[in-house]
């Protein structure tokens, strides 16, 4: 047996799931797609006393809501409906692999808040939000606190994410470099460019959470690189990562601008 022993609950309603979380607090872990949690269980990095399997909850719908797509937390990353957003269409192929996207969920990726994961960067760039079981709507920039940490309370379940629809005339782009296809990013950049010169850029992996950077429209790459303080690691030095941030921002902005329509 790889994981340490735990008790297992498979609630059928969000209320039931939230009350299990309220009762067990930090001792409980929510299992959605399991593509991040189960490796942590297998390596015994995570040793929850209770696993709350969310997979029977009715959270797999996508609906329009005030100009946004409300994506149920259990919508799988491989769901073709997600590809209707041009930013997600470009970013999702970088999320893990074919078989892990079949199982991994949008809500799980957001709640896990890995600083090197793609969907949190996309949600942040678009100014999206998370909806919780306690009725809160948390804007992306308040949701992601730091690596693996969100502002969700221990008794709060993420039930949906809100993705603003593509804005008229805007172009979107996503750029990433990883050591191997499907690995976590060394660095990634997402950009949205508007028909009247609007520009918004978000970075991931070289920062401790998805971060919107205020860039100089005439030198987006250089100005973004100047704003990050990446930690070097075994595979890439801090200097290399800063350089990479500049290159990827430059590429994402160029592609987003090409796609913008006046």
């Amino acid at each position: 047996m790889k994981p340490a022993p735990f008790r297992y609950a498979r609630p059928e309603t969000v209320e039931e799931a939230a009350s299990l979380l309220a009762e067990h607090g930090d001792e409980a872990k929510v299992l959605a797609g399991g593509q991040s949690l189960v490796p942590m269980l297998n390596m015994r990095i995570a040793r929850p006393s209770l696993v709350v399997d969310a997979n029977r909850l009715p959270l797999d719908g996508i609906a329009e809501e005030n100009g946004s797509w409300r994506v149920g937390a259990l919508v799988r990353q491989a769901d073709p409906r997600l590809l209707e957003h041009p930013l997600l269409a470009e970013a999702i192929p970088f999320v893990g692999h074919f078989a892990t996207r079949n199982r991994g969920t949008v809500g799980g990726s957001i709640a896990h808040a890995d600083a090197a994961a793609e969907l949190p960067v996309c949600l942040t760039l678009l100014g999206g939000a998370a909806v919780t079981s306690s009725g809160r709507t948390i804007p992306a920039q308040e949701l992601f606190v730091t690596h693996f940490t969100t502002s969700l309370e221990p008794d709060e379940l993420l039930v949906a994410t809100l993705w603003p629809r593509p804005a008229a005339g805007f172009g979107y782009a996503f750029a990433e470099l990883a050591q191997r296809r499907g690995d976590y990013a060394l660095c990634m950049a997402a950009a949205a460019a508007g028909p009247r010169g609007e520009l918004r850029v978000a970075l991931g992996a070289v920062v401790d959470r998805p971060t919107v950077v205020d860039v100089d429209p005439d030198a987006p790459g250089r100005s973004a690189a100047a704003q990050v303080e990446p930690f070097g690691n075994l595979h890439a030095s801090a200097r290399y990562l800063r350089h990479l941030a500049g290159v990827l921002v430059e590429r994402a902005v160029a592609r987003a601008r090409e796609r913008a329509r006046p």
Partner: protein
Amino acid sequence: MIDVVVKVNGHERREALEPRLLLSDFLRHTLGLTGTHVGCEHGVCGACTVLLDGVAVRSCLLLAVQADGAEIVTVEGLAGNGELNALQAAFREHHALQCGFCTPGILLAATDLLARGTPTREQIVDLLSGHLCRCTGYESIVEAIAQAAGT
């Protein structure tokens, strides 16, 4: 222990299982279906890939109790009456395996991909990014899947 009913390669199985038992270990140790291989056990190598209700998933990243009510297909379920199916035959024809450790996972993932329509070469290559093969160099695997797809 939790009661689980699961259909594996067409046969219904009823077992009482500990929640922490992985689907991969359930298949190999409880059912003796050792064609599902276990490599990294964190989702990277792809060797343990099986079909869960027709969809390719990592069996090392699923608890066996999560498969309750589902239908599983492993590599043992691909050949019919001792005859290789078209995908397996294409692998043999193209020498798309040597040691065979990665092969079951690739066969099941490719089965899912092919069920979605005719894949492009790019889609086949993307699929294989999730499967580590240390023998063949992938080219022959791409060729075999393309042939099974009729391209």
